[in-house]
């Protein structure tokens, strides 16, 4: 099946639904077109096993959510597959475990690569605690994301004519992205002066400067005010509709139910369930592991995020503006 048709198809909700419904909702199930495949990844901190994932596949072109209670190993798992941490089960020069960790992205093996090599392969991440480069301007933050910059090579860096054109192209791209993320008027401010939510936006925009194939968001909504949450959600969905694969870690059930096409649940380091959000949230293993004693509580009242509610808001705004013009 040619990839391009899959990608175009997946911006259509019906096609996505058909795709995910064809996948059995069991942990470690095979996907029709996996972009990321992870095997035997184990991370121990002393006697504690933080992550122990036998097999996981991430489908290309959809939004996959990774959820789980605190300490389930979601962020550690993220760090492992993006090269920021090394798996205990990794194959090294001195240590060759029988079930060595192996993961491949887009057909490329990433077993023993550095974080920067993982990023260059097209899998770009953001951080739970935002890493905005505080003492640099917002625009400079963005410019650092651009790939293959000639001016970043020491040999060429002092000759402005060699990189000036590329720099202008990158600046135009950065400004366009900043505009899309409503940060344009902040472009000359220091990133340290941005609010927490704006930093999340900046980090996401910066990751997009690298033209990633897959973007991995670590708790993109943590600490973001509700007004900004909506636009962030919109951005994430837009990315998917443009053909990008999204994998994100999140606590917020509203968001998970609202935008994810597929949900993977981790508990105590293992993948305990995966499936569509409704299926997963009804799963007994998830209720036991994730919710514990509080399984009576509303898993996510997303009535506020329904389309009717949004349309209602839009109507009110239109009326208000019409009133102002008079």
């Amino acid at each position: 099946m040619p990839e391009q048709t899959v990608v175009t198809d997946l911006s259509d909700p019906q096609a996505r639904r058909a795709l995910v419904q064809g996948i059995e909702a069991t942990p470690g199930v095979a996907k029709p077109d996996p972009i990321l495949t992870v095997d035997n990844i184990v991370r121990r901190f002393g006697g504690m096993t933080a992550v122990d994932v036998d097999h996981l596949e991430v489908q290309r072109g959809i939004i996959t959510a990774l959820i789980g209670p605190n300490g389930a190993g979601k962020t550690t798992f993220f760090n492992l597959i993006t090269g920021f941490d090394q798996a205990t089960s990794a194959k090294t020069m001195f240590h060759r475990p029988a079930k060595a960790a192996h993961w491949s992205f887009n057909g490329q093996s990433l077993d023993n690569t550095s974080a920067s090599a993982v990023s260059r392969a097209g899998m770009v991440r953001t951080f739970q605690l935002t890493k905005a480069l505080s003492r640099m301007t917002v625009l400079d933050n963005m410019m650092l994301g651009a790939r293959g910059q000639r001016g970043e090579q020491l040999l060429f860096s002092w000759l402005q004519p060699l990189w000036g054109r590329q720099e202008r192209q990158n600046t135009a791209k950065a400004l366009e992205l900043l505009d899309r993320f409503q940060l344009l008027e902040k472009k000359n401010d220091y990133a340290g002066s941005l609010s927490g939510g704006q930093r999340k936006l900046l980090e996401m925009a910066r990751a997009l400067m690298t033209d990633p194939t897959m973007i991995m968001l670590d708790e993109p909504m943590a600490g973001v005010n509700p007004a900004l949450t909506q636009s962030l959600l919109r951005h994430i969905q837009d990315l998917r509709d443009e053909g990008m694969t999204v994998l994100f870690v999140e606590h917020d059930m509203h968001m998970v139910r609202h935008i994810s096409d597929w949900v993977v649940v981790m508990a105590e380091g293992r993948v305990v369930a995966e499936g569509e959000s409704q299926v997963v949230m009804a799963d007994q293993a998830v209720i036991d592991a994730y919710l514990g004693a509080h399984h009576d509580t509303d898993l996510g009242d997303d009535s506020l995020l329904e389309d009717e509610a949004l349309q209602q808001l839009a109507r009110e705004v239109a009326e208000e503006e019409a009133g102002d013009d008079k």
Partner: protein
Amino acid sequence: MNEQKPPVHGDEVSPDDLVEDYEIEVDELPEELLEESTKSKTVKTLILTGVGVFVLAAMWFVATNFTGTIPNLCAQVLREALKPQTAAVAIAVIGLNIHFGFTGLLNIGQAGFMLLGAYGFAIALSNGLPIWLAVLIGLACAAVFSLLLGIPTLKLRGDYLAIVTISAAEILRYVGRLSQLGDVTGGSHGLAGSAYRGSFTDLSFFGDGRTAVGPFNYHNTGVDGWWVRAVAWATVAVVLLIVWLLVRSPWGRLLRGVREDEDAIRSLGKNVYMIKMQALLIGGSLGALGGMIYVLPTSVQPDAMGRSLTFFIWTALLLGGAATIFGPVLGAILFFSVRILIRGVTDAVVPDSIMTTQQAAQFSWVVVGVMLMLLVIFRPQGILGNKRELQFNA
């Protein structure tokens, strides 16, 4: 069009309106502050430059037209500012600025790089090699030294580089002092300037004789004359130009990115280790270049380039302002000339029964130390540094 209607009590206010209000309040304040701060910054810069020029001119005038203690002191301060050693230290400070100011590398052994450059240069010259080759050898020594220090430490946290550089610089100094190496390094006596200076002074096109300009009166070429001063300050200018070209480029942006957060830069697919290594190499080579100029008018003395010189370099950097282009040069000039001023004033004001001339010299170092402390507490960005850049030091 977009008039902001103040929300009247009882009016229907949609959530979006509230959001807009909220954003405007947040947005506008820093914007105004920013404009005001850039304006006041330009004014401040102009005033400071004016004051600097005026003070210099006044000192020059006093030194040339009067005689006595104060004119003498003025002349001494001006001469100290123009000394080749001041220029040499300024170059080393520029190198340290690449390390610390732009990349965030804690190098506490810059004097070691200077010493290595000086040894390489002087030993090569005294063995009859041409001067351009001697300069290259000095630079190569520093490059190898920074590779040796960088390969094991740059993958670790910043503190490790600090520990390794300060100890490596001390090791170098002690190796230089070894009596077994007396034939090569001159042991603790060092290398006399006459052993290597010849081919440098031969290059001079200034001719013989003396020239006096204001309070400055030196041989045109000589041991410590106009020639070495001209070469030293020309080198400072060239180094400044190179550093400016490098730092304004995307490579310089990458350096600052590494200073801010290595992991963020890694997540964007850049090779952080390589960038840090390049920065260490360039800064170290500049240190070596400074070392070569430092020994031209004097001799190679391992003990002259020990820990204390490293701390002078740090003080000059913090005084002038890290992560600025001209900060290191201004810092180096002020550091040395202000110390002369303190020494002279103390000597003139305090009677000998309380403090002798030698004690006044020691006292001036004490004051310099106190100044460094006050500087770090009250003006951490230095004279030329950007306070706003420092505010977000999380």
